[in-house]
Every structure is written in C-alpha cells, then in structure tokens.
C-alpha cells in the first residue's frame, strides 16, 4: 500500500542520515517497520478501529522535524503554570532551552531518551518494548521503528517526587507538516511515588502528527499518578498508547483529558499482576467541530485481589465524534477482584455522535464487577430553571456542561490542569463569574 510505503521511505531516509546505532536498536526498528508494513494502517474492518478513520494520518505527507524551534513567549503561554520538573519537546525533538528539571530528589532521574541512550543504552534496551510490543497496533510498531527521542524516568525504591514531572510536547505551525514518535519509559521502584504529566499542546495552525508510546513499570507498592492533558491545535493528529505493568500493592491513577486535535486516539492498558494492585482510570473528552476523540482502555486482572475503577465523561458538540471502549478481563483464578466501569456522555448537538462500549470478560467466579454507559442531552428543565433566575441560555448551558464534567474534574488535584479543562469546557465562564474566588469565600464562610 502506497500510504504505508510513504512512511517506510521516511524511515529509510532517516536511517541513511542517522549515525551508527547499537545492534539491538537497529533490530527493534526493523521489527517495528516489518510489523507496520504487515499490518498497514487500520481500516474500519479492524474492530479496535471500527469508528476511527485514520486516513488523515495515512494520506498525510509528514516529514521528520530537523530543528526544534518555538518562540519562548508562545511556549510560555502554553506551559502549565506550575512548579515542576519539566522536559519540553518541539515536534518530537528535545528543546533544552524550554526545559527545566530543577533539582530532582535523590534516587530520581529524568532524562531525554536520546541522552539516556548515549549514556547507557543497554539499560534503556531492557525497558524499551518490554510492555509495548510491536504487535499491539500498527502505530506502536511505527513508533518503535522511528523512536529516537522521548523520556526515561527512573525512581529508586522509596523515592518520592513531590513536584509533578511534566513532559511537554509542543506542536509547531509549519509550512509543511511533521511527525514525531516519542517514547516514554518509566520505572517506578518499590514504594516510590510520583506524578507524571504528559501535556500535548501547540500553536494555532499546526497540522502535525504525533505518535506517542509510553511504558510504565510500577514495582511493588509504587504509587504513580499519570495525567494526560491533550489540548493540541485543531489540525493535529495524535495517537498514543500507554502500557502499565503493576506489581503487588501498586496504585496507578490515570487522568486522561482530551480536548484538542482533529483526531486523538488513546489506548491505556494496565496489567494488574500482583495482589493488592489498583488501577483508576478517569477521563474526560470534549469534542467540537468535526473532532474525533477515541479512548480504548483495558484492565487485565491477572492476579487475585486486584482492583480497577473507571469513570469517563464525554461531551460532544457540533459534529464531533467520541468513541469509548472500556474493557476488563479477569483471568481464571483471579478471585476476589473488583472492577467497576462507568461512562456517561453528553451530546450538545443533534449531529454529535458517541459510540460507547463497556466490555467485561470474566473467567473467575468470585468477582465483583459492574459497568454502565449512559448518553443524554442537557436537562431542559434545568436550563429553564436557570434562565428563570435571569441567567442567559449560553451561561446556563455552560454551567450545566461544567457540572457534568464535575464528577471527574473534582478528582483532579492539580488546579492548573483543572482550570485548562474548565476553560475549554465552559469558555470563559469560570473567570467571568469568578467561580474560584467564590468557592474560597464560601469555604471561609462555612468555616467561621
């Protein structure tokens, strides 16, 4: 297929200009390329991609960026205003000038993938591809074939990072679109604790393709909170898969906040491999225009006494399309597990569409599982009740939409992240009514 060939050609071009690499990387690139070539881009006949049209990517002519250029002023405006250990990538390339790791606690290392490879490629070799195999999807294969940059994060046993680690992926407006294939590797040692934020954002007018693969290993008792804040410009295409391996008593919490892009597909897979392991998946997607926002999650309960909990909210306006597929697989002998899934969707327009499918596959008999999906519109009675108090219709709809997202948003512990989402969901609503100040005042009153 010529669409696939275009990407393979880019790969050959890159191989010709790239310096010598360790044999293992070359072998993996080859395996990735071969798998990608064999699978091709998924079409609607592939169940996992049934509702997601990737022709915008397949037919695109994406080069690899050769330089990371981004005006510091516009980068500053896009950056989350929080104290953090931050690595920034522009169109996939590491941007040292826009990065600031600050002082990392002992036992914690955060490095760009390129540097980690240069320093000790064998250690990276053990992690790259351990959780995300080239068979997972054509895009994972493609990422493996191209992966050169990204981040390697290691937490020694017991290490606690108080500030979030932010990986900021900036997409720039260019005359010709580019693609990037970042790879993120996290090894969280026993009882370590950290918050990782993957932030995709860019300049208006950008129309690039980013294809991210992240592999997160949580050792015994590790606690990792992962935020994905995707607010790419409307011309961007974004594919990401997040692969998590959880040992005994580890806790993984994911906030998957998808707001931007023409197409954004997220796969999140966790393997609950040890007793007491817990995974929480929270998500919010808000689509407008003709956006397509697709989330597939999978929790594999591979051990007894493991727990998963999922709550996703979808809001779709105009002709946007949302896809949610949440799957839980409980292996034989994985007794006394608990798995709960919920997906609620709000359609703000008649032409918006949601395809939601919670799935349970249970091969054990002593389990506690639930799942549910609902789709509805804004409550007309509530709109009337607000208007009958003098609130204009747009504000009433904004307040109610924000309220719909509230159940997920109130769990978001990082205010700067919550504010970005609130602004996207309700326009300038929170600012206009100074809701934040109001809440503080009300709390003060209550405490008096």
């Amino acid at each position, binding site marked *: 297929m010529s669409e696939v060939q275009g990407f393979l050609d880019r790969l050959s071009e890159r191989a010709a200009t790239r310096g010598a690499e360790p044999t293992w990387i070359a072998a993996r690139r080859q395996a990735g390329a071969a798998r990608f070539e064999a699978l091709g881009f998924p079409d609607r006949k592939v169940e996992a991609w049934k509702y997601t049209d990737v022709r915008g990517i397949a037919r695109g002519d994406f080069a690899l960026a050769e330089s990371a250029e981004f005006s510091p002023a516009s980068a500053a405006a896009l950056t989350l205003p929080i104290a953090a250990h931050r690595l920034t990538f522009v169109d996939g390339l590491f941007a040292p000038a826009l990065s600031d790791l600050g002082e990392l606690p002992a036992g914690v290392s955060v490095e760009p993938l390129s540097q980690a490879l240069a320093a000790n490629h064998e250690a990276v070799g053990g992690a790259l591809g351990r959780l995300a195999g080239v068979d997972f999807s054509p895009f994972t294969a493609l990422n493996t074939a191209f992966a050169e940059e990204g981040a390697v994060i290691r937490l020694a046993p017991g290490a606690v990072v108080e500030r979030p680690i932010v990986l900021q992926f900036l997409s720039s407006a260019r005359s010709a679109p580019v693609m990037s294939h970042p790879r993120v590797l996290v090894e969280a040692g026993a009882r370590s604790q950290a918050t990782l934020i993957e932030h995709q954002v860019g300049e208006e007018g950008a129309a690039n393709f980013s294809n991210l693969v992240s592999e997160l290993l949580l050792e015994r008792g590790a606690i990792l909170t992962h935020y994905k804040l995707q607010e790419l410009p409307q011309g961007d295409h974004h594919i990401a898969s997040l692969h998590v391996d959880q040992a005994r008593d580890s806790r993984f919490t994911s906030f998957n906040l998808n707001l931007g892009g023409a197409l954004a597909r997220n796969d999140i897979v966790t393997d609950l491999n040890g007793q007491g392991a817990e995974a929480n998946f929270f998500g919010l997607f808000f689509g407008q225009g003709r956006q397509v926002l697709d989330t597939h999650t999978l929790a594999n309960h591979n051990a007894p006494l493991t727990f998963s909990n999922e709550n996703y909210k979808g809001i779709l306006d105009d002709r946007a399309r949302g896809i949610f597929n949440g799957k839980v697989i409980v292996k034989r002998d994985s007794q006394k597990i608990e798995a709960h899934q919920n997906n609620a969707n709000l359609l703000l327009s008649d032409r918006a569409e949601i395809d939601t499918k919670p799935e349970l596959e249970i091969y054990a008999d002593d389990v506690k599982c639930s799942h549910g999906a609902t789709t509805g519109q804004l409550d007309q009675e509530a709109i009337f*009740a607000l*208007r009958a108090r003098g609130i204009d219709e747009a504000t009433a709809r904004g307040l109610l939409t924000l309220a719909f997202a509230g159940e997920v948003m109130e769990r978001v512990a990082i205010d700067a992240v919550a504010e970005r989402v609130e602004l996207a969901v309700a326009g300038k609503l929170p600012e206009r009514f100074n809701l934040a100040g109001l809440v503080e005042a*009300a709390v003060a009153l209550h405490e008096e």
Partner: protein
Amino acid sequence: MLEVKDLHVTVEGKHILKGLNLTVAAGQVHAIMGPNGAGKSTLSAVIAGKEGYEVTQGSITFDGQDVLEMEIEERARAGLLLGFQYPVEIPGVKNIYLLKAALNAKREAEGLGEIPAPEFMKLIKEKIAFMKMDASFLQRAVNEGFSGGEKKRNEILQMLVLQPKLALLDEIDSGLDIDAMKVVADGVNSLRAADRAILMVTHYQRLLDHITPDVVHVLVDGRIVKSGDAELAKELEARGYDWVLEESAA
C-alpha cells in the same frame, strides 16, 4: 404592575386557560385558589415563559412591557420571578454559583457592575440565616438530595437575594411541615413592600393563615370566577368550591 387580559392558553392542543383576567397592583398580595386542573400552574408557567404553552389569545403586561415578547431570562431580570412548585435538581451546579450568576445577571441588566465578593457574601450570609439554613448548603448542588422543605426554602432564599418586583409563588406550601411552613411564610412576608407584589397560587387555605392576602381569586376551568378578600379563602376552606361553581353558572 401585572395585567393579564383575556388570556387563552392551550397545552398540547388542550384548552386550559379560557379568558383569564387578572390585575395585580404594587404593594398587594394576591392568592389564586382553585380545584385541581383549573389551570393554576399553567398561569404561573405562562407568566414565567415555560415552553410547551401556547397563548392563543390575550395579553400579559408587566410594568407596561409585553411579557409574552420577552425571553425567559429577560422576564427574570425585569423582576418577575417564579418560585417553582417542584424545584428542579441541578447536579454539579453549586447553590452559590447559581445565586451569584443570577444576581450579577440582574445587576448587569440594571446597568450595575458585578457585585463585589465581600458585599455578596455579607448579603448571602444574612439571607441564609434568615431562612434558617446552614452555610454548608451554599456548597451543595442546587436542590440535589434536598428534602421537600429544603427545596422550598431554597426558592425563597433565591427570592430574598434577587429581590423581585413580582414574586410568583406556585404552590410554595406543598410538601411543607408546620415548621418549614413558618420559615417559608416568614420569608415571603419579609418580601412584602409598597413597590412589590406577590402572587401566590395555592390549593389550600393553610398557607393563607401565615401570609394574609389582600385579594383572593377563585380559578375554575380556566377563568377567574370570583374575587374577594381574605375572608373568601376561609369560606372556600369551609364550603369547598362547588358553591362558587354554582354561583358562577347562575
């Protein structure tokens, strides 16, 4: 202040109001009573602008403005507020957001700026104390999980904060125990003023023991068939509606 002339309203093709006339002047408290199905709730719904009610004839004017030409929110901002019979639950929208958004919308319409936060909190604090409500209520979602009495108190609280010119109260007494009734009635009575009017729709005389109306109307089959003073309500309580029907048929 409010003038309803020859009002005919149909709901899903059914003729409910059939030439209703009503005049409410500033400073007055009016009560509209009547049997079930007479059209009491239809009247308040039409005045507030609820969808699904078709006015086929007649007019409603408020301070000289054509109410039927006004958007729902414009009516509220002009000072025409409906207290709901069944206040709707709005999960996720905190009471304090509603109060502030509504008050600022009204102020904007009046050409005033946004209310400063300290002034707003002082006002709210005073009003919730008057309604014997706990401050924690401000952080709760509008009416969510509220008891019947709490919902009605909340309606009156909104009135106290928004200070309407005409408070339209649709069966504000339904579902209230005697203590809640007293708090609600105190709230309504505190709204009485020379430049304000109150129009209550009620099924029972009970409410009128606490809020004495200046004028009582009997609404039967889509029309006001009899009007009188507070004594009329007592007579209705004692004798029912049949005699009014007979009298008006005669």
